[in-house]
């Protein structure tokens, strides 16, 4: 296999808070090939957004400790200088945020916001940058882009705003796109349109993508590979079809059966009992053990490592290995 575009090794992110230091991301490993789409799923608070922000280098430096290694295209991201970092952000890696209504500056037009980004990352003249902005707005299928370009964010509908943010993120031709629940804030019908657009753009432009979502259906629709996060760790990863068809971790299994897609009409939808752990007081061993139907005393002995299980699937669960069959 060719060298991956992105390689994350033992990434740990700690925040200093009033409650003490918490580890929001706890030693994760990732590899992403060029043009590949990785879907990241997991409950609220599992560290998905923090992971993306660490990759982009936008966590508040004063209260954050990051360790491990992030390598993009052979460069160590964590050792970039301030100046290199601001070229890297938005240039090599772009991010689409969950709430286009708050992530765009309300007092600048869409055009101004795309233009300043393009100027920052190489465009030589304002006219060229604006032409690029217009081209991008057309690409994300904003109708009548020529007049929309001078609209302020509040003058666009939610769906159009998110399209504008996608245009902004892609305007610099990034190698890696980070999408943090880009459709959660939208209506169901608009959600589907935006997902389809993103998938189409991804195929057309070929940037690698990490796509965070709560929605297993969306993850299935768009991802080549899937990583399941729980309490700051990746508990299962593999090709999208393997992970979704043959989930090996009891948590993945719980996530899949607790979605509407997995359920049959008339059946009650199961959900995972209990709550994710308090990051300031993590349980010993496997963080999921307190909620796991298969947990034994062994599970609390040590944090389980990701182990190969199947052709291209990895799972961090000792019960899975002991049983030699699906934890389900």
């Amino acid at each position: 296999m060719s060298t991956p575009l992105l390689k994350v090794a033992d990434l740990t992110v700690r925040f200093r808070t009033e409650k003490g230091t918490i580890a929001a991301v706890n030693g994760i490993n990732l590899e992403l090939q060029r043009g590949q789409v990785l879907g990241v799923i997991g409950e609220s608070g599992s560290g998905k957004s923090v992971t993306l922000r660490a990759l982009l280098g936008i966590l508040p430096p004063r209260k954050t400790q990051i360790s491990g290694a992030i390598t993009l295209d052979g460069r160590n991201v964590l050792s970039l200088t301030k100046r290199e970092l601001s070229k890297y952000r938005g240039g090599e890696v772009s991010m689409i945020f969950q709430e286009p209504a708050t992530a765009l500056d309300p007092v600048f037009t869409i055009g101004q916001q795309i233009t300043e980004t393009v100027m920052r990352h190489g465009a030589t003249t304002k006219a060229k940058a604006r032409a690029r902005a217009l081209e991008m707005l057309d690409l994300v299928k904003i109708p009548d882009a020529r007049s929309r370009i001078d609209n302020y964010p509040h003058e666009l509908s939610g769906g159009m705003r998110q399209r504008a943010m996608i245009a902004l993120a892609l305007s610099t031709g990034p190698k890696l796109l980070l999408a943090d629940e880009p459709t959660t804030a939208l209506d169901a019908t608009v959600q589907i349109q935006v997902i389809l657009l993103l998938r189409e753009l991804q195929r057309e432009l070929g940037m690698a993508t990490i796509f965070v979502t709560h929605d297993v259906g969306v993850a299935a629709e768009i991802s080549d590979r899937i990583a399941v996060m729980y309490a700051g760790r990746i508990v299962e990863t593999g090709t999208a079809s393997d992970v979704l068809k043959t989930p090996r971790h009891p948590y993945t299994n719980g996530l899949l059966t607790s979605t509407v897609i997995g359920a049959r009409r008339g059946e009650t939808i199961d959900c995972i009992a209990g709550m994710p752990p308090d990051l300031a007081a993590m349980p010993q061993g496997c963080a999921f053990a307190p909620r796991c139907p298969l947990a034994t005393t062994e599970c609390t002995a040590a944090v389980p490592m990701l182990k190969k299980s199947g052709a291209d699937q990895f799972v961090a669960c000792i019960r899975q290995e002991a049983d030699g069959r699906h934890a389900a």
Partner: protein
Amino acid sequence: MLGYILKRLLHAVPVALAVSVICFSLVQLAPGDPLAVVLPADASQETVDAVKAQYGLDRPLVVQYFIWLGNVVTGDFGKSIATGRPVLSEISNAIGYSLSLAFLASLMALIVGLSLGMLAGYTIGSPVDKVASAFAISGVSIPHYWLGIVLVVIFSVQLNALPAMGAGTNPDAGILERLRFMILPAVTLAAMPAGIVTRSVRALVAETLARDFVTALRAKGLTEVQIFGHVVKNSAPTALAVIGVQMGYLMAGSILVETVFSWPGTGLLLNSAILTRDIPLLQGTILVLALFFVAMNLIVDILQPLFDPRIKRI
């Protein structure tokens, strides 16, 4: 834009009318008989009635108001009871002094308030922020007149560096000479608005920096200087409103300061009008000051949409 300005102007008319009613009635509520000043204590009833009729004080209040309003609109504010000079010329003379003082004080308050506020807002919790906040709180809470007296003691009495009183008597004095007279009252006057602007700007900047779009700006690789531009444009509308109100106060709120420094502005005029119960002068001065306030608000209303497109130009 022109339509918007006209509409704003039209909206200001009822406000100005309400202001005039309040000015007129406030003075009626004040205790004391204005005629007591101009009339000898043993004046006969006929003399009293004659003088009352002369000033129109024998008519019903509503009629008095409309007569007064009609005159005011045509620029006739009546004659000062105490000096017999037209109120308008008294006021316009004083207003020049007050405006120049207010202008200098605003400039000082703006420079200090904006820069300290931004510094503090960018460094919340740091030593810089603590110093700026302490300064702001002192500015807001130290009484005007006390600060004025302290400054006089230090700079006029001890150091003998700056004049303590008045605006100078030499009509041909150069700008520098005039400025020397203005420094102490201007600093005294600027202390409070500087404190208020510091605190508002600090809060505004901190609040703006915490908003999602700032993270998004960082995420697209903008430099801190570019991000600063976004912060400024987002904070400007609210900052403008605060500054506008403060400049209005500077005009009107200078009674104590002008009295302490014997600065011949509207404050001093108001002070003497109150002491002598000079009703026409009092009404005229209050009205002009209140209208100045209305005008400041109008200017802020007109400027705000230039910074924030969400403020509809209606």
